[in-house]
């Protein structure tokens, strides 16, 4: 383990020293630095004669193409990430992609705010169009709840289902179960 640790430290030091020589534009190769024995490398090493007369390096990409190429690289990276996620977790990747598309669509005016399938909002009542009056809440009689329960003789059920119900602390208790109405 000690030998491995020394080897790693030595390798890191040699690479760091070589990088320093590159930054300083010394005319020395990595093999010259690590060559054991021999005359070795004088310090400081001679500078690279080509570096002094080197002209301004040409950019790899023209400035006018930089922005579109950056966007393209970002799109490729996003697609690669999605495909990678699809291979490892197909459900999560697909759900994430659908969520991202829905997020984009919701930002566009004119598209109705339709909640995603399976979300709590999807199972709730549909939002009423603007201007329409909301329906009146069902009366207790329509709900089939008698409150207070006053079953007197002669009152027929006439097709209603009668529950043993009463109100308590804002809750309507039906057959022993608290139901928020």
């Amino acid at each position, binding site marked *: 383990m*000690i030998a491995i640790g020394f080897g790693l430290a030595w390798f890191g030091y*040699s690479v760091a020293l070589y990088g320093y020589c590159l930054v300083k534009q010394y005319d020395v190769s990595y093999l010259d630095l690590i060559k*054991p024995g*021999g*005359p070795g*490398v*004088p310090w400081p090493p001679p500078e690279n004669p080509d570096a002094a007369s080197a002209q301004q390096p040409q950019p790899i990409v023209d400035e006018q193409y930089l922005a579109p190429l950056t966007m393209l690289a970002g799109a490729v990276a996003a697609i690669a990430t999605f495909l990678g996620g699809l291979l490892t977790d197909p459900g999560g990747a697909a759900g994430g992609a659908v969520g991202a598309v829905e997020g984009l669509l919701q930002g566009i005016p004119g598209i109705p705010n339709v909640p995603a399938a399976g979300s709590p909002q999807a199972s709730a009542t549909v939002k009423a169009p603007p201007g329409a009056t909301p329906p009146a809440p069902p009366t207790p009689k329509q709900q089939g709840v008698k409150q207070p329960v006053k079953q007197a003789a002669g009152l027929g059920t006439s097709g209603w289902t009668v529950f043993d119900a009463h109100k308590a602390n804002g809750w309507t208790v039906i057959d022993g179960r608290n139901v928020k109405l």
Partner: protein
Amino acid sequence: MKGLIVAWGVAEAIVIYRRAKEQRPPMPGELLATSGAFIVLGILAEGAPALAATIAVGIDVAALFEVWPFAGDGASTPAPAGP
């Protein structure tokens, strides 16, 4: 084996100290050459650890007194003088 490792550390420290006194970094090749001798002694330590440790300490003493310079000590060539 512990004595060998300590002697190895001392040898590396001697090389680094000498290079730092000359205001130059120790070359990786010098450190490797110094370690080469101790790697051989490590193989010898498998059979005779006391002998290997003794030889390693002897190498350190010789290097300290510059009786037997390490391989690569000839690398301390001064930079060529400018025009």
